[in-house]
């Protein structure tokens, strides 16, 4: 069929990757970018743990550089690792495959949203290298981030990097929303979509609503720094606390942006390897929606010590506690999905089980921190560091590993080496727990965040934590060995390697998924509903 050649064109080299409009190639680009950023951000965190292994300043004499490491680690992990891997990577790859669409709704916009992010990453790395780097923490609170206290161009580069990353995410979110609303295959109603697609849809709405607020705040900070405005400068009638309200109005939904796609991945994995449909499908979907909605009304729980009125703090305490309810529904529904199942402990499932448990550990410390009174001795201590690394750091990373092992066969056509992958799992999961669990104790004892040196009483648990970082590092290196072995000598994978439990549409296309898929729309009207 000569006329089909045109549709089947398969560009190669520069044309394929630089000008790509194919959702799978762009998804791959996002995943590669996330891996590169993860290496940079991970090296930064290991350097931090190296310095903190013992009291005193051994490796980092320049405390501005320490603050830059803390700042850049946060920015990289949030904006350039988790978001690209989950939303740009898995979202791009599997949303069209799962809803039976041939590609994304706006393939060219898909391309520009990736390259904006790549440019953002370059600017972020540049920011750390000019004028001493931004030493503000990822929260960039003025007046510390104002031109008086962070002179030079570093913070400005950081702001522009975030502007690009934000624009990239907004475009990506629009693309995903339009794709999910308009390009579902016949019979794929909203209430039949796989939960991963639900999670990406909700995440996209959060991005669309939250990121413009960040963009506004960043622009105000930029003009404060360079063009004489005084939005946040108290000596000219501005208010530094305004920044915190704007930042956290974005920042709190942002943490759900990070974790919701992981929820989606875990739902697919748990269902697949239990051999059962997801328990309480609608409850799961609307629990995620509820988390997304309530997430916009709890932002000031990050600001309990800024001097808010006591009634305001009482409101935010109550509102924040509400989040625990839909989160509990998710946890118990996963357990109920496994209950009565025929569970196979493949590596993705091991990661999913670890995810559920770690998320509960991080979740309950969130209940403590939600209480403005209980938060008093804990705010801005390592307890907070431990809490958010459990719920958004580890949980998101475990979700990413679960998704990677689950889908790598579909993406590459080759299976991961099972034994090595299991070793990787144990090193990583044991490592991160030895790394972060003792940080609860440090925080309870009173050790503040973001300090390069600490009173000697904190030496013990800091050493344990740094040993954990070392174990995690081995797990991370092993992951790249797994990746290399998968490409080099991985076994060829069947269309559906996971068997009966894997019911979603991506398992109906060949492995690796060919350049174009679902050219003829699958009809799922006859299929049993997802619930």
């Amino acid at each position: 069929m000569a006329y089909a050649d045109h549709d089947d064109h398969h560009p190669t080299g520069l044309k394929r990757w630089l000008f790509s409009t194919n959702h799978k190639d762009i998804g791959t680009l996002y995943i590669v970018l996330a891996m590169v950023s993860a290496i940079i951000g991970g090296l930064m965190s290991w350097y931090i743990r190296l310095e903190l292994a013992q009291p005193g300043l051994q490796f980092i004499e320049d405390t501005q550089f320490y603050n830059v490491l803390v700042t850049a680690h946060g920015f990289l992990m949030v904006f350039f690792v988790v978001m690209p891997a989950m939303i740009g990577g898995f979202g791009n790859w599997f949303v069209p495959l799962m809803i039976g669409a041939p590609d994304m709704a706006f393939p060219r916009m898909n391309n520009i949203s990736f390259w904006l992010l790549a440019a953002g990453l370059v600017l972020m790395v540049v920011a750390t290298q000019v004028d001493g780097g931004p030493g503000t923490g990822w929260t960039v609170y003025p007046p510390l981030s104002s031109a008086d206290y962070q002179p030079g161009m570093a913070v400005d580069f950081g702001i522009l990097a975030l502007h690009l990353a934000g624009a990239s995410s907004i475009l990506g979110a629009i693309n995903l929303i339009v794709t999910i609303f308009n390009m579902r295959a016949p019979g794929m109603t909203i209430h039949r979509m796989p939960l991963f697609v639900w999670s990406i849809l909700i995440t996209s709405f959060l991005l669309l609503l939250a990121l413009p607020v960040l963009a506004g705040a960043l622009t105000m900070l930029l003009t404060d720094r360079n063009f004489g405005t005084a939005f946040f400068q108290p000596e000219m009638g501005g208010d530094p606390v305004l920044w915190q309200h704007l930042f956290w109005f974005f920042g709190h939904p942002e943490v759900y942006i990070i974790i919701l796609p992981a929820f989606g991945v875990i739902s697919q994995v748990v269902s697949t390897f239990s051999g059962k449909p997801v328990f309480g499908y609608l409850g799961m979907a609307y629990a995620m929606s509820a988390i997304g909605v309530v997430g916009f009304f709890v932002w000031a729980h990050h600001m309990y010590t800024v001097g808010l009125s006591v009634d305001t703090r009482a409101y935010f305490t109550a509102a924040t506690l509400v989040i625990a309810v839909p989160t509990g529904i998710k946890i118990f529904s996963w357990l109920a999905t496994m209950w009565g199942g025929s569970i196979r402990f493949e590596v993705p499932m091991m990661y999913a089980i670890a995810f559920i448990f770690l998320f509960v550990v991080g979740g309950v410390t969130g209940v403590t921190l939600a209480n403005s009174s209980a938060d008093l001795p804990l705010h801005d201590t390592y307890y907070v560091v431990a809490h958010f690394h459990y719920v958004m750091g580890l949980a998101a990373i475990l979700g990413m590993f679960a998704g990677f092992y689950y889908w790598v066969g579909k993406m590459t056509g080759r299976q991961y080496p099972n034994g090595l992958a299991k070793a990787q799992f144990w090193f990583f999961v044991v490592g991160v727990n030895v790394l972060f669990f003792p940080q609860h104790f440090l925080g309870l004892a009173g050790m503040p965040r973001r300090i390069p040196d600490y009173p000697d009483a904190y030496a013990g648990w800091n050493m344990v934590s740094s040993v954990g970082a070392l174990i995690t590092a081995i797990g991370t290196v092993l992951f790249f060995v797994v990746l290399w072995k998968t490409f080099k000598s991985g076994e060829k994978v069947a269309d559906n390697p996971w068997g009966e439990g894997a019911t979603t549409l991506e398992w109906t296309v060949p492995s690796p998924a060919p350049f174009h898929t679902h050219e003829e729309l699958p009809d799922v009207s006859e299929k049993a509903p997802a619930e």
Partner: protein
Amino acid sequence: MLKKLLAHVPLFVLGMIASGQALAGSDGEALFGRSRPWQMWLQDPKTPSAEAVYDLNLLLLYVEVGIVLFVLALLVYIMFRFNAKANPVPSKTTHNTLLEVVWTAVPILILVLISVPSLKALYFADSAPDTEMTLKITGNQWYWSYEYPDQDGIAFDSNIVESEDLKPGQPRMLSVDNVVVLPVGTKIRLLMTSNDVIHNWAIPAFAVKLDTVPGRTNETWIEIKEAGDYYGMCSELCGINHAFMPINVKAVSKEEFAAWVVKAKVEFAGNSPETSIPGKVAQLNQVAQ
């Protein structure tokens, strides 16, 4: 696989139990106002607010450890009972209305129960109407300024003692040249602001942690129960020496405090106008007149 998982589970459980033991024991040592090596729980509370916050955290610990152990038990049971060997044919159950109502309603109930003591402690710790004296605290890059408006405006700066200048018994990174002397058994109002960036004045044993924000004045209160040295650190990232602006409160009896005031008035005479924003404003007003 299961054995391996079980082998690493005790890590969490032990940690949880150990932290419970640490708080029950307190090591018998009369060391308070700072943290101990290998400490796993909050510092001993030494103000009424800190006691309320401490009790609340204890309650939360028990509830949370209970929830974690409950989920862990479910997970372990599920992995034994419903693995592919033990249960080769999966059920197709996807709904149980009663169960779904229960796991929505029970958490709500627990949260409501938590919120009662939580909000009580919040309002209690916020402010006291009948404070007997005031301490003004001003954050600077990277030291603290203190002012006693009720003691004729005694004012001084408090800088870290560098490691090489430490006297025996002074803890590293926590000791300052001029300590804040305060009387025990006295309701003290704390007013805080900053001269430059946002800092945070925090003493864990008092459950005090409040930002010093330029252009704003924040308020809280303390009533110290026991004489001794209390230590804290700046708790909001404020630049390169954020880790090196500690707080040291020396709580003494009312009589000793009165004696200190007499001495301090001489020692810090002529200090007051330069160190605080209100002082600077007063100075400028004088110049203007």
